Structure formats: structure tokens, C-alpha cells
């Protein structure tokens, strides 16, 4: 187990380092001159241009700029945004609650709904209920999160006109109100996939030999499913949840766009459109970091759950 953890951690650090280089180089491939983004079309003298270049470290070599960026990240400083002339870290911190709230709430909604749904469809195989739910799943998988959001807004405005669900918030109640609907919209595409995987792996477990033994010992269906099959069938679900995390993180960008929420997505897309490197590299790095960290933790989690995985890579 110890070797497994060390191997995983080493891999994790290397991937993070390479990813940081890729992000750094990519955002600088754009031919737009950063100074023109900073001054925003105003007339400038050569002296101001030189001052700005010095202020934003643009007069240093790319290698030095990279080191400054990485050093800053370790100190919690993502540099200064070109457009807003503000520290990227404070911009991120201000918008983090929305993004984190969306990811957490939609994961919870998705898990709470999809696991029972998967179990039910596995138990009621080939009944009208199963067929009906499968059709809904098929449609949900094909439904991008922004479309679900638009439909949701349409439904809210039709059925409960006057409810405010977009814009800024001042207290916790309002905050929950703002992120509830987008989270539901975001959770929908997750539910389709996760419940499908739960169903497949549940059926596999139900048909396995140990379930047959449990049945012949006289355990009830309920005991077999909850005490025996559930734990085993959740391993693929954890995997799919880990890979889906990436989809979810990008999904917040789309959903907050529709609901006009002030999260990380809107300034990221804005930064991409206007070549604001510090914002783009900072936010992308942060999101990739979160994504890789979750994947790594999940890898370790199922090494804990399933000794076979540990044994395979521990040699």
C-alpha cells in the first residue's frame, strides 16, 4: 500500500508540473500584445509602455515569468489581471463560492438520485418502468447542461413567475436560492450516466455466484442488495464519478453563463476572449489541479476499498 501511494503521488506531481508548463506556453502563443490588452486601446507613450511591461514582468524572459508564476502560486498569488488590474487571487476568491457550491450541490443531488435509480432499474429489469427510465436517460445524456438550464428557466418563469433566481446574492439564503436551480440542471446529465453505470454493475453483482450463495442461505432480496451487492457495485460508480468531475467542472462554466451567476466560468471565458493571460492560466490551472487531485484521491480510495487494485500495482 505504501509503495502504491508513493507511486501515485510521484505521478501526480509530474503531471501537475507538465500541465503547468503546457498552460503557460499555450496562453502565450496568442499573437496579441499583452500591453494593448492592459491599456485597453488608450493612447500611450513609449515610457508608459515600458512601465507597464516592467509592472507586469513582461520585460523578463518567458522562463523567468514562468518561475515567478509558479512561485506565486505556492504563495497563493496568481498574478495581476490585465483587464481588471486586480489580483487574480482576489478575483478568484470572490467567485469561488458560486463554483464550489455548484459542483458540490450538483454532485450531492446526482448521487442521491442516481444510485437508488440505478438499483431500482436493475431490480425491475425489462419492465415498463425500466424502459421508461431508460428512454429518459437516453435523452438526458444527449442534453447539454446549458440546454437543461434554459429549459429550467423557461419552466420556472411559466410555473412560478416572480421568483428571483439569477443575479447577485447578499446572504446565505439567497446564495442557496441562486445555486439550487443551476445545480439541478447540472446534475441531470450526471444522473443519466451514473444511474446507468449503477444499473449495469448492480445487475452484474446480482448475477454473481456469491449472491446465489446468499440467496440459497435464505437471505431476503433486500439483505442481498443492501448488504452484499451495493458495496461491490459502487466501485465503477466511483470511477465514473471521478471522470465525470471534469465534465461537471466545465459544466459550471456553461450553467453559470445561462443563470448569469458570478462564478469562475464567466471571467474565464471573458479572459479567453480578451487574451487576459493571468486570469486564463490561473483559473485553468486551479480547475485542472482540483480535477487531478480528485482523480488521485479516488484512485487511492478504491485501492482502500478493493485490495485487488492494491495488489496489482503494488508489486
Amino acid at each position, binding site marked *: 500500500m505504501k509503495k502504491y501511494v508513493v507511486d501515485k503521488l510521484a505521478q501526480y506531481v509530474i503531471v501537475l508540473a507538465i500541465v503547468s508548463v503546457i498552460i503557460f506556453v499555450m496562453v502565450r502563443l496568442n499573437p496579441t500584445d499583452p500591453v494593448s490588452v492592459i491599456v485597453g486601446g488608450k493612447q500611450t507613450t513609449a515610457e508608459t509602455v515600458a512601465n507597464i511591461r516592467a509592472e507586469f514582468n513582461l520585460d523578463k524572459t518567458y522562463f523567468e515569468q514562468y518561475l515567478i508564476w509558479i512561485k506565486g502560486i505556492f504563495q497563493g498569488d496568481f498574478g495581476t489581471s490585465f483587464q481588471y488590474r486586480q489580483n487574480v487571487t482576489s478575483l478568484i476568491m470572490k467567485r469561488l463560492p458560486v463554483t464550489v457550491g455548484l459542483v458540490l450541490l450538483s454532485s450531492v443531488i446526482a448521487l442521491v438520485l442516481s444510485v437508488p435509480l440505478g438499483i431500482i432499474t436493475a431490480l425491475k429489469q425489462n419492465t415498463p418502468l425500466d424502459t421508461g427510465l431508460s428512454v429518459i436517460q437516453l435523452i438526458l*445524456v444527449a442534453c*447539454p447542461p446549458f440546454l437543461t438550464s434554459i*429549459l429550467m428557466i423557461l419552466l420556472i418563469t411559466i410555473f412560478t413567475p416572480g421568483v428571483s433566481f439569477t443575479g447577485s446574492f447578499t446572504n446565505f439564503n439567497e446564495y442557496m436560492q441562486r445555486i439550487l436551480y443551476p445545480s439541478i440542471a447540472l446534475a441531470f446529465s450526471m444522473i443519466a450516466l451514473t444511474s446507468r453505470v449503477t444499473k449495469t454493475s448492480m445487475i452484474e453483482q446480482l448475477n454473481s455466484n456469491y449472491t446465489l450463495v446468499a440467496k440459497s442461505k435464505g437471505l431476503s432480496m433486500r439483505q442481498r442488495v443492501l448488504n452484499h451487492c451495493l458495496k461491490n457495485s459502487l466501485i465503477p460508480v466511483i470511477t465514473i464519478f471521478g471522470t465525470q468531475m*471534469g465534465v461537471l467542472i466545465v459544466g459550471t462554466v456553461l450553467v453559470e*453563463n445561462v443563470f448569469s451567476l458570478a462564478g469562475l466560468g464567466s471571467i474565464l471565458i471573458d479572459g*479567453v476572449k480578451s487574451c487576459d493571460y493571468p486570469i486564463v492560466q490561473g483559473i485553468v490551472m486551479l480547475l485542472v489541479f482540483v*480535477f487531478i487531485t480528485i482523480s488521485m484521491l479516488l484512485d487511492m480510495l478504491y485501492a482502500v476499498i478493493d485490495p485487488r487494485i492494491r495488489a496489482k500495482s503494488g508489486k
Partner: protein
Amino acid sequence: MDNSKKEKIKSFFTGPVIVSAVVLLLIILASVFAGIIAKYDPNEVDISNILSGPTMQHFLGTDKAGRDIFSRILFGGRMTLLSALGVILISVIIGVPVGIFSGYYGGWTDKMLMRISDIILAFPSLLLAFVFVSAFGRGIINAVVALGIVYVPMLAKLTRSLVMVEKNKVYVEASKSIGYSDLNIMFKQILPNCVSTLLVQLTLDIGYAILDLASMSFLGLGVQPPTSDWGAMLDEGRIVITISPLASLAPGMMIILTVVALNIFGDGVRAYLDPQQRKLPSLKKFKKLVGEEM
């Protein structure tokens, strides 16, 4: 023999597969002949007639600039399908050779190529596409190239696993003993045996490409005005969603319809090729897991 083959072909044409095939055919025909079917220029602005509901002249009504929604759906469909095909084409051109080399030679080549794939997979897919767009600028071509590259690792890993199974078979050994070159064995002997499985995956991938491209266009990073695809139409229509829902619902329904049809059709072909796989989840994200197991 002849009869059993007929039976097998018959088993392919189940209800859902026929329906999805017909739907796909209609969508493809509609976008190919968009110029003939559409009564209006999709970009023709008519300020005197904005946001009209469905009328006799405008089958699906007009959008916020008075453009005919039905014509825009047709031309937008052409744009959407072409760009999705572009994404798949790019991922095939890079991904399949990478997978073949990786699987056939193994060892050092394999390790290096798979490490690169892992790095690309470390990014949530659309996020990497955003970074690409910030490097090379907005526009549909850049979005297509970006997504094409993002799709490479999945396809390369699938091809690799198929080749690793094939390369141990007798016909490969025979080809080697006759003295065929490695290139000949890889592309002329092994590849044809993998094509059917790859085609199924590509059918499903077109669906994902449509969804991802729609997301990019929706955010304004893909297709640029006045040209439009279904994703961009959704974005244009959402501001007026309460006044004229059709402006964004129509392209939305088209996206869902196309992707659902592609998924059903792909699943049908898969079931026909390999009845044992019928119960497996067919989704790309699950491929990653399966790819590692193989």
C-alpha cells in the same frame, strides 16, 4: 450458410435502429439540401417582422433579428454536422496511427505515447479546448481542431487495445513469416480487423462532438456571427426565451434528436457486431475505465 447470414442481417434491423437510421438520414439530407429546402436566406435580417410566432410564411417563426428560424436550423445543421465530422476526422488521422504504433510496437514507443495521452486526459476535455482557443483565437476552425486533438487520446487508447489483441493472432505471425513489412502488417492486415469496432465508437463520438461544439459555440468561442450553428442559435434565442421559446427550443431539440439517434444507431451496430457487449454502457467516459482494464 446463406440463410444464417440473412438471419444475422435481419437481427440488425430492430425497431429502434430503423427509426434512428431514418431520423439520421433525414437530418443529413436536410442539411445537404439546405439551400433548396430553405425558403429564406438564413442571415437575412427583417426588422419589421421580429419574433413572430409560427406563421404560414415562417414555419417556426422568426428570431430577434427577424431571421427565419427554420432556414437557420437547416443551415445551422449543415454547420454543426460538418464541424462534428471535422472533429472526428482530425481525431482519426492522429489517434488511429498513434494507437496502432503504440499497440504494435509496445515498449518504449507505447510508454511515451500513452504518457502524452495521460497528460491530455488530465484536462477536463472542454477546458483544454478553451486553452486552445485562447492560444489560436476564436472561430469554428480553431474549435474543431481543438476538440479534434482533445478526442485523440480516447481513440488512441481504444485502437491500442484492439491492436494488442490482434497482433498475437496467427495471421499476423503468418504475415511476418512471409516477410511483410511492419507498416504493411499494421495498416493492411491488422487495421481492417479493427475497423468495425472503431466505426461504432466514431458514430458515438460524433454525438459527443456535436454536444461539445454546441457548448463552445454557445459560449461564443466557436462559430462567429452571422454564421450560426445549433449551439450559437441556442445562445441567440435564450435572451428572448419567454417571448419566443422556439428560437432556442428548436435548435435544442435538434441537438437532442441528432445525438439520441446517433447513440441508438451506434449501440445497434455494436450489438450486431458483438452481441455479448449488448449490456455494456456505451459511453465515452466509461471507455477510459475499460481501456485501462484491457
